C-alpha cells in the first residue's frame, strides 16, 4: 500500500512538472508571435519547385505576395514529379497544386474533378533534343521512327506532347520506343546513347544545348516554336484545386490567385537577372544560367494569367494519342478551368 502511494506521489509530481513546462512553453511561443492575426494556412503541392514552369508560385512565395494576402502558404515539393503532386491534391493532402493541365484531364477520365484557376505558363516549355551523334540522320520528327526516345516519365506531359508530335508527322506511337528517362537524367541518357532524342525541360535544355552536345528539333519555349510544332496554343502549367476547396474556401482561392496574378505581372516586366536575384539561391541555382534560360522561355508567361480555352482543347487532343482520353470520351475544355478569379484580380 505504502509503496503504491509513493508511486502515486512520484507520478503526480511528474505530471505537475510536465504541465508546468507545457504552460511555460505556451507562454514563450505566444510571446514570440504577438497579437498579429494568424495567417490562414494553405498547402501547395509542386513536383520539382525549381523548374521554370513553377516560377509564378515560387516567386509569389519568395516576394511575400501570399503573405500580403494573409495566407501562410507552404510549398510542398513532392518528389516524383507532377503526377505525384496531382495525386496529393486528389487525395486531399494539399489544397492546391501547381500542375500541368494534363493532370486535370487525366483525373477527369477517372471521374475526379480538378479545376485550373490560374495559368502559370501558356506554352509547353519543353523541347525535343537530339544527340549530336545523329545530326546527319535525324532532320525531322519523321526520322525518329524506330528509335528509342526519352520522356521524363511514362504518362507525363512530355510523353503526351511527344506522342502528339510523332503522330502529326505520321509516326505511329508503337513505332518508337518510349523510355522514361527522368528529367534530370535525360542529358546523360542522351550522352550514353540510351535514347537518340528526348524531351527536355529547363534548365537541362539550355545547358545541354549550350554545351554543344545536341540540337533542338522542336523548341516549345517560344510561341513561334510551339505554334509551328503543335499548330497553335498549348496550355501549360496551371494552379489546380478541388471543387470542394472552391466551395468551402472561395476567398482563399481568390487570395491565391491575386498573389499569382501579381507574380505573373512582375515576371513579364522583369529581366532574367532580376528574377534570379528575387528567388532563393536553392531555386535559382546558377543565377546567370537561370537568367539565360528565363529569357529563352520569357514568352511562356502570360501577362493576363488567363487559362486559354484553345490551349486546353489542344492538350485534350494530345492526350487522345495514347488513348489517355479514349476516342469516345468528350471533355468540355470549359469544365476544366475557371477564369473568374483571375478576372477579378485583374479588376475586369
Amino acid at each position: 500500500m505504502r509503496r503504491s502511494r509513493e508511486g502515486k506521489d512520484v507520478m503526480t509530481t511528474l505530471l505537475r512538472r510536465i504541465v508546468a513546462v507545457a504552460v511555460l512553453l505556451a507562454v514563450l511561443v505566444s510571446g514570440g508571435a504577438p497579437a498579429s492575426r494568424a495567417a490562414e494556412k494553405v498547402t501547395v503541392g509542386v513536383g520539382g519547385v525549381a523548374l521554370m514552369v513553377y516560377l509564378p508560385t515560387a516567386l509569389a512565395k519568395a516576394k511575400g505576395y501570399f503573405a500580403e494576402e494573409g495566407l501562410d502558404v507552404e510549398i510542398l515539393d513532392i518528389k516524383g514529379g507532377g503526377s505525384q503532386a496531382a495525386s496529393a491534391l486528389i487525395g486531399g493532402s494539399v489544397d492546391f497544386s501547381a500542375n500541368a493541365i494534363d493532370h486535370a484531364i487525366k483525373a477527369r477520365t477517372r471521374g475526379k474533378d480538378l479545376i485550373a484557376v490560374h495559368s502559370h505558363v501558356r506554352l509547353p516549355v519543353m523541347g525535343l533534343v537530339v544527340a549530336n551523334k545523329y545530326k546527319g540522320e535525324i532532320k525531322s520528327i519523321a526520322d525518329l521512327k524506330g528509335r528509342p526516345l526519352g520522356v521524363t516519365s511514362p504518362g507525363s506531359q512530355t510523353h503526351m506532347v511527344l506522342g502528339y508530335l510523332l503522330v502529326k508527322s505520321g509516326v505511329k506511337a508503337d513505332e518508337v520506343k518510349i523510355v522514361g528517362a527522368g528529367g534530370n537524367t535525360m542529358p546523360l541518357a542522351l550522352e550514353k546513347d540510351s535514347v537518340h532524342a528526348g524531351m527536355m525541360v529547363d534548365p537541362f535544355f539550355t545547358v545541354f544545348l549550350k554545351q554543344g552536345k545536341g540540337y533542338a528539333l522542336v523548341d516549345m519555349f517560344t510561341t513561334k516554336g510551339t505554334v509551328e510544332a503543335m499548330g497553335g496554343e498549348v496550355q501549360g502549367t496551371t494552379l489546380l484545386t478541388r471543387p470542394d476547396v472552391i466551395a468551402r474556401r472561395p476567398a482563399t482561392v481568390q487570395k491565391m490567385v491575386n498573389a499569382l496574378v501579381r507574380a505573373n505581372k512582375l515576371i513579364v516586366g522583369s529581366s532574367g537577372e532580376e528574377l534570379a536575384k528575387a528567388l532563393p539561391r536553392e531555386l535559382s541555382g546558377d543565377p546567370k544560367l537561370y537568367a539565360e534560360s528565363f529569357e529563352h522561355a520569357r514568352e511562356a508567361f502570360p501577362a493576363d494569367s488567363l487559362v486559354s480555352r484553345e490551349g486546353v482543347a489542344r492538350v485534350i487532343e494530345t492526350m487522345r494519342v495514347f488513348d489517355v482520353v479514349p476516342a469516345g470520351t468528350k471533355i468540355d475544355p470549359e469544365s476544366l478551368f475557371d477564369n473568374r478569379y483571375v478576372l477579378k484580380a485583374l479588376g475586369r
Partner: protein
Amino acid sequence: MLATSGVDKVSRAEVYLWRVVLLGAFLILWEAATRRGWVDPFFVSQPTVLAMQIADWIRTGFIFRHLVVTMQETIIGFLLGTLLGVAVGFLFAHWEKLARIFDPLMVALNAMPRVVLAPLFILWFGLGLLSKVVMVVSLVFFVVFFSTYTGIREVDRDLVNNARILGASPRHMIRHVLLPSALTWIFASLRTSVGFALIGAVVGEYLGSHEGMGYVISYAESMFNATGVLAGLLVLMAAVIAIDIGLQRLDARFSYWKPVPK
C-alpha cells in the same frame, strides 16, 4: 499419437478451406464497399474491374511482353547474385582471415539502402537490362552471402572432425559435408531473396525503362489508374508465388542431402 497423420490431413483441408473463405470474404467486402460508396474506387479499384483488367491483359498478350522482361531481369540477377553470394560466402567461411578483414565492409555495404542507389545504377549501366540486373544482384547477393557464410560456420563440428578422421580430402569435405549442411541455409535464403530480386527489377524499371512490369505500374500510376497499379502488383505476386513453389520443389528434391539431426 497414432492419429497424428489423420489429424494432419483434416487440418490441412481445413486450412485450405479457411484460406478460401477469408479470401472470398475479403473480396466480397472490398467489392461491396466500393459499390456502396463506402470507399472510393478511384483509390482502391474494385475486384471485378481488376479481374477484367487482368483478363484483358492476358487476352491481348500485353502483359506477357512486360512480364517476360521483368522475369528475365529477375532470373538473371537472381542466379548471378546467388552464385556470387554462395561463392564469396564459401570463401569467407573457409578463409577466416578474409572474413575478418572484410567484415565491416560487408556489413556497411549491406546496410546501404540500394533502392536509393537505383537512379545511380541507371546512370552507370544505362536504361536497359544491365542496370536492373545489377540492382537485383546487389539485393540478392547479401542475403545469400550471409546465409551461406553462417550455414558453413554452423556445420556440426563433430561431423567435420569425424569426416576428417575418416580421411576426407578438402574436396570431399566440401562436397559431402559442408555443402549439404549449408544447403538448408542457402535454400532458406533463396526463398527470401526471390522477393528481393523482383523488387530490384521492378524498382529499376520503375525509375527508368521502356518496358517491364515496373514501367506498366509507373505508367498506370501517372494516369491515376489504381486498377492498373493493383493489377500489375497482382501479376507480380502470382509470378513470385510460382517461383516460390518451384524453389520449394527443388528444396524437397535436394533435402535428402540434409544430415540427420542428432
